[in-house]
């Protein structure tokens, strides 16, 4: 119990004193996971909408694959991204391993199926006649897609939260492709693992609290936006 209290005190000290190292780690976490979520939104919503709105052979298999991908273990992604990015590997020429970009790639791979799966579900949830109605009003294809995305915005917002929550809290891929390099690729989760290994439990608790605080704040904002208008 003392340990948790000490951790709390330490966390507030670190936050209040704006400890540059902790602040750097926290900002990097936000930047990396934020960008990864952004990419996953582009691909997830884009392809998710495409899959939901078109009919093609093998669609059920594809959707099952996407849904399986929603539970993609981060370490598996970390392993494969590492192998691809090794400097003597197929994409080694890009010199990306152990950089923040590598973490963004891995996290995007983790978050995309989550966003995509939720997008597909959200789109298929829309009333079937809605499409016909919008088309009957003379909408172009682009307008149609845009209208449908707007219509599904509430569940899509849940997708954003799930995607972001998934990547900011994962540690397996970040440590494998980022390497936990001090001041460069050390994010909140990898720093927590390391500080625990070093026996600095107070710092580890402080870092976890910051992580929780971030998750809460981001989700609070997103939920706020989501709930601003009540659905009809």
């Amino acid at each position, binding site marked *: 119990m003392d340990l948790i209290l000490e951790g709390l005190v330490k966390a507030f000290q670190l936050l209040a004193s704006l400890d540059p190292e902790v602040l750097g780690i926290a900002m990097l976490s936000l930047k990396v996971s934020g960008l990864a979520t952004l990419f996953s939104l582009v691909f997830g919503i884009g*392809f998710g909408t495409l899959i939901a709105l078109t009919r093609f052979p093998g669609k059920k298999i594809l959707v099952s694959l996407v849904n399986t991908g929603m539970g993609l273990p981060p370490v598996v992604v970390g392993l494969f991204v590492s192998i691809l990015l090794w400097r003597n590997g197929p*994409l080694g020429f890009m010199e990306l391993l*152990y950089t923040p970009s590598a973490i963004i790639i891995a996290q995007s*791979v983790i978050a*995309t199926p989550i966003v995509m799966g939720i997008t597909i579900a959200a789109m298929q949830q829309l009333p079937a006649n809605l499409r016909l109605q919008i088309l009957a009003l003379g909408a172009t294809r682009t307008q149609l897609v845009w209208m449908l995305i707007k219509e599904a915005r509430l569940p899509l917002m849940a997708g954003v939260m799930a995607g972001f929550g998934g990547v900011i809290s994962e540690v397996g891929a970040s440590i494998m492709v980022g*390497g936990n390099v001090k001041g460069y690729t050390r994010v909140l989760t990898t720093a927590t693992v390391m500080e625990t*290994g070093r026996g*600095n439990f107070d710092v580890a608790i402080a870092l976890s609290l910051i992580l929780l605080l971030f998750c809460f704040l981001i989700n609070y904002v997103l939920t706020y936006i989501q709930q601003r208008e009540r659905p009809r």
Partner: protein
Amino acid sequence: MNHLQRVLFVTLSCFILSAALVPSSWSAPVQQKNLILATTTSTQDSGLLDVLIPMFEKQTGYFVKTISVGSGQAMKMGEKGEADVLLVHSPEAEKAFMGQGFGVNRKLVMHNDFLLLGPASDPAKIHGAKSAAEALKKIAQSGALFLSRGDNSGTHAKEKGLWKAAGIAPEGQKWFQETGLGMGETLNVAAEKHGYLLSDRGTYLALNKKRHLGLEILVAGEPKLLNIYHVIEVNPAKWPKVNAPGAKAFSDFMVAAPTQALISHFGTKEFGSPLFFPDAGKTE
């Protein structure tokens, strides 16, 4: 399925392109300046590298990416040309590594020693045992819990050597558990489960200072328990992408007089005794 493949391909290439285009300052602060150091968990968990690396970076302008893994994995990274320089402590494996031509210029840097630690109650009564081998035999006979690193690290290699010397095959025994974790974390596990374990002195002292582990030094001081660290440059002839000048600079830095002096003082203020003893230029 063709469609699927196309979608996958486009997605994948978009990811990689976009990530490559993101802030270029992130993706490598001037190519040749990057140096990948693969090292053991003990050098990082004890805090030594937090002192040495900034010094090296300031002196030379290289940017060091320290990847802290077990010695075994560090050498695997060297074998595949995924690291430029290694700081490891697994002499037998290092000799094999050098013998196969994966490394050049293996230099002695420092040592400390391994300790057999256990709970104060000492259920297997190993305190005062004449040798590590004798102590391990007692642990095996009494069936008291022993925690092994189990991760191919230098410490794990040493541990396996000691078991072999004691003539015991502990794998699969009920009292023998492998954590598969780093030194610091394995110490935490042993503290929680009141188990015996082999640890390097540096990590033990550093961790015990922060959190009373309740583990006592029961056997120590035998020549067999020496823990010797070497720096090895990865052979650039095998892997042209290796940053050979950087590796050489780091290797020279580790054995330079000011660095060695710093190593000899590291930890004295905090722990009352040094964690590592400098050895540059000596023979084993």
